[in-house]
């Protein structure tokens, strides 16, 4: 059988996270790990404030290297390059969304490309305390995050005719497929569904699909199936409980993870984790800046705080991470303190205070 491990570099698989965390370099001074924090644009800084406040109260041994990257700063090329260097050095980051700058560089996409953060993982799980159209959802959307439709290769071949290139490679498709199956295995998930549109995009999505099928053969204990993306979107609103782990190219991953996030409560409550060979980035699952609400402190910090908690677990600070996740979930499920998106009127800071109060309550249990 083929030596997939050696070929695609997944050595030292960490039992919980399916990625090589053991070998990754860590910046540690005086027992504290330094991680990069990029609040981003829009409501990002307010959400980042929630995390820093909570981490300080919890006294977690994490030092934030805060990098302010917003539209203004990005006019200076150096700022962006510095952020990349910082992430490469620290190996771990917590990030908001950077709004597209006026020029043609797309910074969020460049981040992922430059750092090769290729696997975006969004787990969408129903919250008892949030009233939604469907319940009992627990799916994991795994999205290839460095190629596909986001290759940003466009040109106007003749005036009025634009060509936009979607790139699919065997190398990256095999890599994300392997990641998805490893992730499924490490987390005891039963089924992986490959989402594609190979009936129309026969060569590109056809290649992606073929790679997933090839990798699936090395994981006989995991059920493998394929589904066309339009049907997937339909199925998600009719019977979302049928989905387990889903693996897909970039654009479909964007749509499916946003759709699924909407099903379980929205952008305010769904965290995500993104992995590269030696890097992990944590950020809210549905990436929106919500520019109109900038500075008003109405955004729900749950997604960002949960992302921060998953980052703690990644840093092997499991106790801290688990207790923070428990606190956030309890506050959301109790439904007393609710931000706008959850039907209430609490501010970002009130939500943060509620999490802190819950943390205290858990400690005295």
């Amino acid at each position, binding site marked *: 059988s083929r030596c997939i491990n050696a070929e695609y570099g997944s050595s030292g698989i960490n039992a919980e996270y399916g990625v090589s965390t053991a070998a990754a370099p860590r910046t540690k001074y005086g027992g504290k790990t330094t991680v990069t924090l990029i609040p981003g644009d829009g409501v990002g800084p307010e959400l980042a404030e929630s995390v820093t406040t909570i981490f300080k109260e919890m006294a977690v041994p994490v030092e934030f290297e805060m990098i302010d990257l917003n539209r203004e700063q990005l006019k200076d090329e150096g700022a962006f390059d510095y952020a990349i260097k910082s992430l490469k050095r620290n190996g771990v980051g917590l990030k908001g969304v950077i709004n597209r700058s006026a020029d043609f560089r797309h910074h969020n996409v460049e981040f992922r490309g430059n750092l090769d953060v290729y696997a975006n993982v969004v787990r969408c799980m129903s919250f008892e305390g949030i009233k939604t159209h469907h319940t009992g959802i627990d799916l994991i959307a795994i999205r290839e995050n460095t190629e596909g439709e986001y290759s*940003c290769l466009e040109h106007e071949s003749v005036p009025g005719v634009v060509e936009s290139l979607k790139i699919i490679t065997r190398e990256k498709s095999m890599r994300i497929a392997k990641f998805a199956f490893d992730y499924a295995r490490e987390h005891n998930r039963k089924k992986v569904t490959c989402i594609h549109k190979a009936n129309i*995009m026969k060569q590109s999505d056809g290649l992606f699909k073929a790679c997933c099928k090839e990798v699936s053969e090395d994981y006989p204990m995991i059920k493998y199936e394929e589904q066309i993306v339009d049907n997937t979107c*339909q199925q998600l*609103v009719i019977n979302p409980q049928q989905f387990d782990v889903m693996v897909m190219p970039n654009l479909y991953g964007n749509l499916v993870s946003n759709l699924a996030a909407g099903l379980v409560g929205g952008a305010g409550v769904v965290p995500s984790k993104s992995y590269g060979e030696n890097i992990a980035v944590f950020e809210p699952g549905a990436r929106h800046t919500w520019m109109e609400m900038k500075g008003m402190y109405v955004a729900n910090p749950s997604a960002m705080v949960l992302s921060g908690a998953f980052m703690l677990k990644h840093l092997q600070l499991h106790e801290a991470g688990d207790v923070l996740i428990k606190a956030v979930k309890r506050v959301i499920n109790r439904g007393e303190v609710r931000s706008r998106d959850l039907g209430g009127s609490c501010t970002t800071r009130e939500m943060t205070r509620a999490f802190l109060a819950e943390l205290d309550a858990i400690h005295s249990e």
Partner: protein
Amino acid sequence: AVVSTQVREAVVSTQSTGYANVRPAKSVPGVITPYSAEGVDCVIMRENTEGEYSGIEHTVVPGVVQSVKLITREASRNVAEYAFQYAKDHGRKNIVALHKANIMKMSDGMFLEQCREVAAKYPEISYREMYLDSACLKIVSDPSKFDVMVMPNLYGDIFSDLTAGLIGGLGLAPSGNMGKDGIAIYEAVHGTADDLVEQNKGNPTALLMSALMMLRHMGLKTHADKIEGAVLETLKERKFVTGDIGGTATNPEYAAEICRKIKG
């Protein structure tokens, strides 16, 4: 007509017709979905000739495939014009263009540019733009906020299946393909359902609704309304409905009940 993709593509492309695909999604009484309470009543205008469906793909080197998405000013303009005129003719108040111009700046950017130019000619219709992923997030939380939506080919295909799902599935989803020179082809969105052939079990609602769209297009609104009333009433009563929506009637029985209601 329920035809295979190849046939439809051939018809659509050779005759340069079918540049706008119209897919309404309206909650059906009697077909209860998690979204029936707030009610869905939206229309998707999908550009139907180009975009990601240009079929232009090549293997650059072994293991690297390039797929070309083509957006032209002309095709974008055509679908935008159709969308706004449709909205005006049908009394719809809002149009939102769905796109990913943050990522695909030139292609989706050009599409949006055309939408904006046409929007300026229809000041009575409110126009805005929304990222496709935001739309997916929002529509599953509150579909009642969506009215007419216009978008390029691939997004239209995916999103209209999503909206069909909100109302109960493809068995109920009609569509029309609008072409230049007034050619219009109406068809159900679903596939050929080979497993149900010759058993009289298929649900004709999608095709029937498509036919009603055609009648309205031909100016036969009174007839269309009468038939539609009978169809909705039959679906609401649920006594003679097909298996895909939870009933036990055959296709002819369902149709007979509708006829009974039309006769009064």
